[in-house]
């Protein structure tokens, strides 16, 4: 049992001594997942909002498919992106596989359905009323959607935080397309997974603690912002 306690002690030491390797990994994780979340949100939120208020044939089936896609396994996304980017794949020439860019692409595709689905559901339930008011006041389609986004901005921010949490905590997609290459494509989750299999617990525990801390900070920020609203 001692090795667990020992692992924690060493982990804390690693964190408070600002171990360079650890912090490089943390920064890369933050960079990849933040970029992916921003990209996915910019595309998925306006799309989700506009599909939510639209009337169209087969909307129910569309909803069900969307909600299924929200929980698409990260390894599946990783695999699909890897196939597309592999040397023989359609985008093989770009030589993106095993780079930071590939990880960003994979995570963007991973959280896009999530972000879309959450915005879609939100807009379906609460966007209609706002859209009606917007129409009676003379807003066009674009103006209505911008208004809905602004009116529901707290809920949308929660969506963004949820997307970010999914991105930064997933391991399958970045492992497959990034390859967990030291000093290059090694992020928090892939390192934890590797350290665990190597029996190097302090580093794994330290990164686990940091991952939890990041999640805590993000959600606290959102929480205090939503109370202000």
């Amino acid at each position, binding site marked *: 049992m001692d090795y667990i306690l020992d692992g924690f002690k060493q982990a804390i030491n690693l964190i408070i001594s600002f171990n360079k390797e650890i912090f490089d990994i943390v920064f890369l994780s933050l960079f990849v997942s933040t970029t992916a979340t921003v990209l996915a949100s910019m595309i998925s939120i306006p799309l989700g909002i506009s599909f939510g208020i639209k009337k169209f044939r087969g909307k129910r089936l569309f909803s069900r498919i969307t909600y299924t896609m929200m929980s698409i396994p990260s390894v599946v996304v990783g695999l699909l992106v890897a196939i597309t980017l592999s040397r023989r794949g359609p985008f093989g020439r770009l030589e993106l596989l095993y780079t930071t860019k590939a990880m960003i692409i994979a995570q963007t595709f991973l959280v896009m359905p999530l972000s879309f689905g959450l915005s879609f559901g939100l807009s379906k339930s609460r966007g209609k*009323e706002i859209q009606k*008011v*917007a*129409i*009676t*006041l*003379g807003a*066009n389609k674009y103006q209505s959607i911008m208004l809905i986004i602004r009116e529901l901005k707290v809920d949308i921010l929660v969506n963004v935080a949820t997307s970010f949490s999914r991105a930064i905590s997933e391991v399958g997609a970045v492992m497959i397309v990034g390859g967990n290459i030291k000093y290059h494509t090694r992020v928090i989750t892939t390192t934890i997974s590797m350290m665990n299999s190597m029996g190097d617990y302090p580093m794994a525990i330290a990164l686990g603690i940091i991952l939890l801390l990041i999640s805590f900070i993000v959600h606290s920020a959102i929480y205090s912002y939503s109370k202000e*609203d």
Partner: protein
Amino acid sequence: MEIQIKNLAKTYGEKKVLDIESLNLEREKITGIIGPNGSGKSTLLNIIAGLDDKYDGQVLYNGELIDSDIRKKMTLVFQKAYLFKRTVYKNIAYPLEVRGVKEEKIKQKVLELLKILEIEDLKMKIGSKLSGGETQKVALARGLVFNPELLLLDEPTSNIDPEYIEHMEKAILKYNKENKGTVIIVTHNINQAKRLCDNIIKLERGRVIN
């Protein structure tokens, strides 16, 4: 704006909630719609406002079918008004902003309406946090601010205290006289209908009765 309704029928499931053979609402006049709860008043206003297109029959605006141009010339103040999560000033400015009106002009119009409705003290408050009556005052100001040709009001004074109702009625009359605006107002207050309206229409179970 003149409204002509022909053979209008609206059903929810099996239930027919509107059944109007023919109805003309005169331009530049104030028309009152009265009738018991559930008689179809709000449904009718929603249809005229172009928010509901699931009905049979025809609604003509100056003889034409609805399009985005006509939409921009009218507005509906809802029975349960929804104000945005921004200041009262910004709420009232919204219809002008979406029409690309210049900042200076917007300021002038908004301040004018705050004054007419005596709600200057609400100016910097957040719209979504106002009381029921305050919300109705601001919603009316927001509907009047761009001088629509057609103003549809769904029980606009249901939460307003008796002393203040006069102010709102004055504002509606002023708009009707000075801007030649057509008004259709739903109200449960028969005295209000008598004070304001040139014509009164009575609805019962979705039908117009005389």
